[in-house]
């Protein structure tokens, strides 16, 4: 399946033989097309973080006049710098999506400085004033969707014990664990969450062990924040537990127990960004959004989700969409008994103090260090 219709074998071999001939490289570019490059840190079919981005790329691929080039399993080293430069120089890309958090500093910054004509849309929400204007960074308030997963799962749980398999105790992850727990407690205040940190983003064996251990402790709802939820969701399904997904839709892995899930809505966002870039309209350097701006979504409900759960979750989602609900409003205590958000304080999704979250809320069993 040739990605480049204009590319013939003669061109390729010619290019090989002629070594550094610019003409040969030029011929590899699709004439008059707008080339968009996507770079992933893992595999495109990981049922998780990278697949969510690849689904966004697939939506971009369907746009007329656009050519998409992709590269997967690119580590956060000089490899990503080379991958970006290669897409620009060898494929003629004018818009790049380097999708891993760790690509930004120093690699995206360096590449943006070196190539002012290329637009970089990085996933992570890291842009700061003073950094190159052709560098952009976006991220979603996915804790909104995770909160909804907690609400839905609370209706199905019998043991009132939730299990959470998490990679690292960093703010983004803690925020999801807390949102999940607060969502569940909004339905059933006695629900607790047991969290296990595996230590890294992709450790399938440890993730399976953690899931089994949570099942043995009596948890009947399992969710996770790791790069590929596949192992966690499959293991929980085998143990007959309910699950809620993360990053993308994992229903196919667990048709019996998968209730709903928190997904990135990149297939909605990316075509919008590419359209702006093609029309040379300005794109904000820092982009953040939740349900309201179409950055996140929930997986469709499993048929087993009771009507009461759907009704409540849909009502809250409508309020998220309208932009008038905050997950983190005081009083909130951490699991050591100190007040972390005072009564009367409401931290809306944009609040930067949430980006520095370093606590687990009351009802979560686990430690941040």
């Amino acid at each position, binding site marked *: 399946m040739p990605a480049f219709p204009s590319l013939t074998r003669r061109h390729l071999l010619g290019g090989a033989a002629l070594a550094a001939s610019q003409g040969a*490289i030029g011929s590899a570019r699709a004439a008059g097309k707008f080339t968009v490059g996507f770079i992933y840190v893992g595999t495109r079919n990981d049922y998780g973080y990278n697949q969510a981005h690849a689904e966004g790329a697939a939506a971009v691929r369907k746009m007329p006049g656009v050519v998409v080039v992709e590269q*997967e*399993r690119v580590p956060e080293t000089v490899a990503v710098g080379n991958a970006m*430069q290669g897409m620009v120089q060898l494929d003629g890309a004018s818009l790049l999506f380097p999708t891993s958090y760790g690509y930004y500093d120093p690699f995206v910054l360096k590449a943006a400085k070196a190539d002012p004509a290329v637009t970089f849309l990085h996933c992570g929400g890291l842009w700061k004033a003073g950094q190159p204007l052709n560098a952009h960074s976006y991220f979603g308030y996915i804790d909104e969707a995770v909160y909804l997963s907690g609400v839905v799962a609370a209706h199905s749980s019998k043991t009132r014990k939730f299990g959470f398999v998490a990679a690292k105790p960093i*703010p983004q992850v803690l925020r999801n664990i807390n949102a999940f727990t607060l969502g569940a407690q909004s339905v059933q205040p006695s629900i607790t969450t047991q969290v296990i940190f595996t230590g*890294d983003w992709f450790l399938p064996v440890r993730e399976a062990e953690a899931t089994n251990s949570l099942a043995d402790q009596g948890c009947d709802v399992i969710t996770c924040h790791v790069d590929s939820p596949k192992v966690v969701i499959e293991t929980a399904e085998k143990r007959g537990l309910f699950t809620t997904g993360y990053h993308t839709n994992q229903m196919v892995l667990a048709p019996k127990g998968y209730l709903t899930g928190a997904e990135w809505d990149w297939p909605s966002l990316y075509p919008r960004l590419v359209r702006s870039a093609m029309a040379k309209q300005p794109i904000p350097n820092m982009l953040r959004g939740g349900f309201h701006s179409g950055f996140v979504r929930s997986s469709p409900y499993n048929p087993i989700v009771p009507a009461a759960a759907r009704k409540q979750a849909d009502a809250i989602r409508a309020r998220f969409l309208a932009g008038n609900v905050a997950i983190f409003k005081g009083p909130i205590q951490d699991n050591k008994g100190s007040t972390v958000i005072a009564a009367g304080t409401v931290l809306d999704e944009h609040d930067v103090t949430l980006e520095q979250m370093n606590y687990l809320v009351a009802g979560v069993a686990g430690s941040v260090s």
Partner: protein
Amino acid sequence: MRLARGIEAALPPVLALLATAVLFAAFLGLSGTDPRAAYGLIWLGAFGTAFSWQNTLLRAAPLLLTGLCTALPAQLGLVIIGGEGAFVLGALAAAAVGLKLAATGMAPVGIDGAMALAAMAAGGVVIALSGALRHWRGVNETISSLLLAYIAIAVMNQLVEGVLRDPASLNKPSTRALPDALMLGAIPTGSLPISVHVGLLFGLIACLLAYGLIFHTTFGFATRMVGGNLRAARMAGLPVGRLILIVTALGGAAAGLAGMVEVAAVQGAASADIAAGYGFTGILVAFLARQNPLAIIPVAVLLGGIDASGGLLEQRLDLPDATIQVLRGLLFLSLLTVEALQGRLRLAELLRWRRAPAVAQAVNATVSGP
């Protein structure tokens, strides 16, 4: 005779390369891809343009040094596979020392020097530890170096997420960033549009020095004697323990220096991203170079080129990323297979027979005797 021996030494890798090329073409053909298009792209992506060369050389730079971490101890007959640990500890030591000294207002060149020394010391100690365990406690150095690498990575993660952590690095725990003045620059290339950091030069110089040391000094001769026959070396009164310590430390120092370059020329800070596998790829480089420090140079460039071309295969032919891993796996397997032929395929002796037909006939007579 020298030429024949040279050919015999170069033959296994060349055969392995050819076998790999044929096997990989068959693999591509079976999966419905035109091998000629793929090889064209591999060439284009690895060496076809100035940018391809830059891509290739940037990937080769750390491999030159991590390859030495396996190749130098191999002269002693030791199989060290823990270069990743030396690399990671080198990076960590370089970042810690660099950040500490940057606050003192020392000249950047001096700080970079101190960072390199700290990195080489850290890497040297961890690999020398494997050598010492082997010599004095009889612990298998292959296993111990690998396990030490895991410990090194854990130590790095612990420190980067703990005492060395920049409080501002919220979601990606890292040390503070090195000041720009400490970052290593690019090799001046004149009008060529190639920008490769000076780490490549460090690697090239280290490989040349290692070659000189091993093959043109009495120290190197003693080292190879330990590798050739430990008991004979002891009988000859060679200080075996000291040789093991020094040579393993040198290997570790090379990988540690690669870690320093990764921090000071690429990442700008130490984080979990440091453990990206350069140490492990170095093992492959060393074996492919048949543990010869000089041969590491072309091998590292070749492997760097294969890695560099992976992107084009994915983008132009819609091949999965694993394709390049298949190619690397085939290369390593072919090499090990051909290696087994070594010693059975005595080219030098075959040539000698041709020059002394009487001997050959005598042998033939014996073989085809009654």
